[in-house]
């Protein structure tokens, strides 16, 4: 039953993802990609258990490496996306001085 339940989640998440992303305008496609870099760093959550769990040496080493790699994505991805999005400005309305 667990498998069927997971497959349901897969199906719904895939459709939701497509509907959400389709609405992102072309002008934001680069921030979208760096932002999804950050989100794919969610592997970090899985890696935490492997890194800090009560397990053999190999698992701990691999888990720690996965934590490090995923952290690069999470920290770097969100940060650079924020830096980029901060640059997008609307045209100042005529007559409005900055």
């Amino acid at each position, binding site marked *: 039953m667990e498998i069927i339940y997971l497959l349901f989640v897969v199906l719904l998440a895939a459709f939701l993802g497509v509907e959400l992303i389709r609405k992102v305008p072309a002008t934001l496609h680069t921030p979208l990609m760096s932002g999804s870099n950050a989100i794919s760093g969610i592997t970090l959550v899985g890696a935490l258990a492997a890194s800090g*769990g009560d397990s053999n040496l190999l698992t701990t080493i691999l888990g*720690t490496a996965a934590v490090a790699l995923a*952290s690069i994505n999470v920290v770097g991805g969100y940060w650079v996306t924020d830096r980029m999005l901060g640059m997008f400005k609307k045209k100042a309305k005529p007559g409005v001085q900055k």
Partner: protein
Amino acid sequence: MNDILTIINFTYVVAAALFIIGLKLLSHPDTARKGNFVSALGMLLAVLITLLDQQIISYHYIVLGFVIGGAVGAWKARTIQMTAMPEMVSLFNGFGGLASLILGWATFAGMDLLTLQTESIFVFVTLLFTILVGGITFSGSVVAWGKLSGKIKAKAFIFKGLRELSVLHLVAIAVVGYLFVTAPSTSLWLYLGIALALSFGLWATISIGGADMPVVIALLNSYSGIAASAAGLATGNTILVVTGLLVGASGLILTSVMCKAMNRSLINVLLSGFAKPVAAGEKIEGEIKVLSAQDAFYVLEAAQAVLVVPGYGMAVAQAQHAVRELQSLLEENGATVDYAIHAVAGRMPGHMNVLLAEADVPYDQLYEMEDVNPRMENYDVVIVIGANDVVNPAAKEMKGSPIYGMPVIEAYRAKTVFVLKRSADAGFAGVDNPLFFKDNTRMVLGDAKDTINSIVREFAEA
């Protein structure tokens, strides 16, 4: 289910909601920054709550990994040039793929003999899938990064037997995959699977030319998400499944946008290295008319409506700030200035938009191809800066051209076209451009930034 586990899973649901709201806010430039923040909040929540997990007994290594990774990520994010974003995104795609691969491997290494014999086949299939997709993503991204940053030749690397090698790889992956799933206690199959995935990613990407890299990055972006999602299936972690798929969907949509903009199928792009070279089409007739920056200024001074079409050459010349300066001068002079961005301009989706945003060009002055083509006749001057294929009329006129059928910005229909270019040879894709030979086209040769700066000086002196 004990209490802590319930709390963790409930928090995952909240985190997933934050990711979804974050992506929704990303659909408009005004709210996008807030969306990114909401998404980051979701990530923070998911990570913090996971640390409560009772399986985690030591935090030393977690902190060590996080400090190293976080420092590298922060350093990259702060120092990266906007022109180099495509390289950075491909590198991050690669890290994402590698993280999933290693997580899959760690999950396998953490299983004792009993688990290996009793665990359901579903776990091993998803584990295998994680390792394969993660491996292909990693090595493919490293190649894409190398091509984009000029560390390896951007040209498609083709040799005899490449097709056979690829087919052989797929067969070997299928065989090793079957052996792994049926006899998981032999770790050799896992290691072979990792090696095959890595080398397959390498060959699959190295045979794709530099001009198709936007498609490749978008696709690898999608893979990195799918790998994370598969890792979630293998470890039974729903937040990974959901979130990974959001990324997977995002990459797939961008891939399809890119392919549509080039009027090619994904298969055509991926196998482009195997295609026969196109027979030389018709010879282009006419001569190139060169214009000096000073004369270009006189034309621009009289222009009422100007359209700028940027390409990757603008990024290389770092000309975006000079372009912005020219825009202000033209607007003070009473002209309107619009920008037309082709979906495949630059080296990744939306690359030009970010560069222009960096130079303070308001995003509502940027238009897509479909918006400017119907009113092209109204523009007095179109300035093409470092773009080539995206304004190439051969896509419409020459049946033999490799880009025939690709939708382009029809700059040649404007009253005058200025092409700012280093020299009059073919572009990145190596395709001849009949636009250079049109009666209403003037080539302004030289470094794009220098040219624009000279025009700007002329304005200042006028």
